[in-house]
């Protein structure tokens, strides 16, 4: 419904509706007045100006498109009335009215629909045309009759034109809101036309009464009544004025038949009132239609489907978007039950909504999400906003607007987003779990070197107190803290600490191993694209320990080979010394100087032999003893043998852990076991300056074999025997060499430097391990790990000569 009004109105017409109305009103009035004044003698002529006024009214009534034509027709009729007998004017007037009606019908309601309303429209138009067409015949049937005798029925008939026209307007289809009922629920149009009909009928009937002389009063009263009833004060006032003027003409021109003039005046008044009323209604309606047109255009352009549903649940209106959502033309939706559009799953919900509408309730919930089928079988997810306004009682038919928003794509997008968020959350969780499960410490720093994210190991490894383990902690604060732990040595300055940090965080991110909290921690950093960096901390303690063990093992092996070669050569060399010194001793005079000399030579050779034997013990690779020796009893036996030899100020404490399996045994030689323990305990006693408490702890442990490769070290159950002294302790540097043969810290002449080397060789032959842990000034702990024998322990790592 587009607004084409401006193009249809001739340009010389005032564009303002009210200006047009006044122009035509007074124009018509002037014409009527002029005709009235002119129509004095010929019979029938005075009637014509009334018809002209009617034409004006009709033209007004039927809209601006025909306004000009109706006005022109009215004017023509008036002129015809002035020029000759009024009869002549009727046929063209009737034809014009018919054409106007037909065209009007076609213009207003294209295409004609054969509904009850359409048929009613057509009927009204036909009846109006027939009545108009019948009027000339009415005149023709009684040409002799005085014009006054036909005036009353003619006035009535003409007056009834308006009701028909009003009925036509009533039947005319229109958009919304259709104010079809008044506050009492009566059809507005019907009331209007009824009132008007009564007024006109009264006017016509009172013609006779007015002839007695009371007409001006009656005319005025009628005008006021009409104005009051129609609400059109202008029309009423104009009618009163017209009646008064007509009266004045009548008084002035005496000979004019009173009833004719009266009827004429009434007609004019009524016509004007009706015209005014109709024009106002028409204006209002056109404005409304214009508004409706705009509103509808707006609604049509909305990206929201709009469907109006009546109380039966049938679609009575749908905008193009609704059709687009549902996948068909909006027109095809009309008359379709809305419920049937839903998928099977959605229908109960829709049925519930329709039930609520039928019971004049706001559907609850107001917003529903349902699936609607499309003709191609696919379904769209839509959100429907049920706009229900409780109508004033009986005010208008119950309708509910359903605002349909297609949320399929939105929902899909939301779902995808939710999926992505979910995935992201899962990944974040996974990352967090992974980070926390890592054995490395990890922390991410912002480009401004403040802490952003870290895993559980990070603060744990660095011994970070909780105030430092917070987002936003500057990296330098952490480094300063590490400096207090002695990670960068003793007495480092702020500048050195900063230099340490810079070395880590600036490429090439120099790696460093720091000694923190008893662990070797290797720091490394990875720079990120945004300038941030990740600090990685790796605990290398075990690696370094195993590496040291392996290095030591290799060193000891090399030393062993060397020592073994030297020892054999020495044995060969000792042979003639022994042989000849003993021979010399035997040949010399007893107690002579020579005999004493040979005796000392033999003594020296014996000492040399002892040393060589020690070296060979350290170096040899003897096979393992065959029998199993229970470790704990062997330990006590050995200690019982050692104890008497210890200085009396030394207290020997022995503890055996409960964790040692009952009857734990190893393939070792008791004599060797005794020798190892003797060496260790004697050493400990020497380190303690022969006073204090010396502890021997025996516990179950695992023995790890490092084979110098990257592979995971193998482990075996073992018994660890630790000899703990509270002596001088050993420097870290010395610790590396302590098992080397001839390495001694003792004064010249005390010890051969072979005790620990021999112990090392023996323990190694058992397949065990010996190690020292020492803190200078606090004492040392020498521990030997003796692998347990027995099939359940030896399985994988039996002493197999092929293995090495």
């Amino acid at each position, binding site marked *: 419904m587009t607004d084409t009004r401006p193009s249809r109105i001739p340009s010389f017409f005032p564009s303002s509706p009210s200006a047009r109305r006044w122009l035509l009103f007074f124009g018509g009035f002037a014409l009527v007045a002029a005709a009235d004044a002119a129509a004095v003698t010929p019979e029938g002529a005075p009637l014509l100006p009334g018809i002209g006024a009617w034409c004006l009214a009709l033209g007004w009534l039927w809209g601006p498109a025909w306004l000009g034509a109706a006005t022109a027709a009215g004017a023509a009729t008036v002129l015809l009335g002035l020029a000759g007998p009024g009869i002549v004017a009727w046929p063209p007037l009737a034809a014009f009215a018919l054409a106007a009606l037909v065209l009007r019908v076609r213009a207003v309601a294209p295409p004609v629909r054969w509904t009850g309303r359409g048929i009613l429209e057509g009927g009204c138009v036909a009846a109006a045309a027939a009545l108009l067409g019948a009027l000339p015949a009415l005149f023709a049937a009684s040409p002799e009759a005085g014009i006054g005798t036909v005036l009353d029925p003619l006035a009535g008939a003409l007056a009834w034109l308006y009701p028909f026209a009003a009925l036509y307007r009533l039947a005319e289809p229109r958009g919304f809101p259709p104010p079809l009922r008044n506050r009492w629920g009566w059809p507005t149009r019907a009331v209007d036309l009824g009132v008007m009909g009564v007024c006109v009928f009264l006017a016509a009937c009172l013609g006779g009464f007015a002839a007695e002389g009371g007409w001006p009063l009656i005319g005025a009263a009628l005008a006021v009544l009409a104005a009051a009833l129609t609400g059109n004060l202008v029309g009423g006032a104009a009618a009163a004025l017209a009646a008064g003027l007509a009266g004045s003409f009548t008084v002035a021109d005496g000979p004019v038949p009173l009833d004719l003039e009266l009827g004429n005046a009434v007609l004019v008044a009524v016509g004007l009132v009706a015209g005014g009323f109709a024009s106002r209604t028409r204006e209002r309606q056109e404005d409304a239609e214009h508004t409706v047109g705009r509103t509808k255009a707006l609604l049509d352009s909305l990206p929201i489907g709009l469907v109006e549903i009546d109380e039966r649940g049938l679609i009575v209106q749908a905008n193009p978007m609704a059709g687009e959502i549902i996948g068909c033309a909006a027109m095809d939706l009309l008359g379709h039950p809305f419920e049937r559009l839903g998928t099977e799953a959605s229908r109960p919900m829709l049925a519930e909504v329709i039930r609520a509408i039928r019971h004049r309730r706001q559907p609850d919930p107001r917003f529903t999400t349902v699936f609607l089928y499309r003709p191609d079988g696919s379904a769209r997810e839509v959100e429907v906003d049920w706009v229900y306004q409780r109508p004033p009682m009986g005010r208008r038919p119950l309708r509910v607007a359903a605002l349909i928003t297609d949320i399929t794509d939105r929902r899909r997008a939301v779902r995808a987003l939710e999926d992505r968020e979910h995935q992201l959350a899962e990944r974040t969780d996974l990352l967090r779990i992974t980070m926390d499960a890592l054995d490395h410490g990890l922390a991410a720093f912002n480009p401004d070197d403040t802490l952003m994210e870290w895993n559980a190991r990070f603060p744990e490894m660095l011994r970070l107190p909780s105030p430092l383990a917070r987002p936003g902690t500057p990296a330098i604060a952490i480094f300063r803290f590490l400096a207090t732990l002695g990670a960068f040595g003793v007495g480092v300055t702020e500048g050195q600490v900063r230099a340490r940090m810079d070395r880590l965080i600036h490429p090439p991110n120099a790696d460093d191993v720091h000694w923190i909290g008893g662990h070797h921690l290797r720091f490394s950093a990875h720079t990120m694209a945004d300038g941030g960096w990740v600090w990685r901390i790796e605990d290398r303690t075990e690696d370094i320990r195993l590496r040291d063990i392996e290095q030591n093992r290799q060193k000891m092996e090399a030393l062993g080979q060397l020592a073994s070669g030297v020892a054999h050569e020495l044995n060969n060399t000792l042979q*003639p010394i022994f042989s000849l010194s003993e021979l010399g001793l035997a040949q010399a005079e007893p107690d002579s100087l020579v005999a004493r000399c040979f005796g000392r030579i033999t003594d020296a050779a014996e000492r040399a032999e002892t040393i060589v034997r020690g070296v060979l013990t350290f170096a040899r690779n*003897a096979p393992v003893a065959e029998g199993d020796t229970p470790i704990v009893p062997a330990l006590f036996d050995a200690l019982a043998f050692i104890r008497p030899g210890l200085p009396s100020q030394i207290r020997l404490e022995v503890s055996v852990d409960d964790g040692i399996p009952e009857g734990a045994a190893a393939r070792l*030689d008791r004599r060797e076991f005794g020798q190892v323990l003797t060496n260790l305990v004697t050493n400990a006693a020497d380190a303690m300056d022969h006073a204090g408490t010396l502890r021997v702890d025996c516990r179950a442990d695992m023995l790890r074999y490092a084979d110098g490769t990257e592979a995971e070290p193998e482990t075996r159950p073992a018994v660890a025997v630790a000899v703990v002294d509270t002596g001088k302790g050993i420097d870290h540097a010395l610790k590396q060499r302590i098992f080397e043969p001839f390495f001694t810290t003792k004064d010249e002449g005390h010890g051969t430097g072979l005790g620990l080397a021999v112990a090392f060789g023996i323990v190694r032959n058992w397949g065990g391990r010996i190690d020292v842990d020492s803190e200078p000034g606090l004492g040392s702990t020498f521990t030997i790990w003796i692998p347990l024998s027995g099939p359940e322990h030896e399985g994988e790592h039996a002493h197999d000569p092929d293995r090495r």
Partner: protein
Amino acid sequence: MPTILIVDDNLLACEAISLVLESAGFQVTQAHRVAEAVESVAKSCPDLAIVDLSMPDGNGVDLIRRLHQSHPALPIILYSGFFTPEDDSEKRAMEMEGVVAVFKKPLRNNDLLAAIRRALDPEADA
């Protein structure tokens, strides 16, 4: 006077032991190589051989096997600088045919002489 063959590549050791044996009244022949030893045994038929296990031109074990094959009655005393007290190679050497005693270097004169006497006169010992 029993003749004793000493086979040792260490000249000093060889000389010293022969001095000890000679002073104990034995006639001593020295050999420093496997080939020499084999030749010497074939030529002089010693009553006893003292053999060092490590030789520059051959293994003492091989030499003992050969000596025993050619002279099954020859008692052999084995000694070596490579024995260690707990080494079972000493035990294995003891099990060889013809070997009557095994010593590790440095061996003592009294031990050696006792072993020689025992080997040369089993009855006296019994």
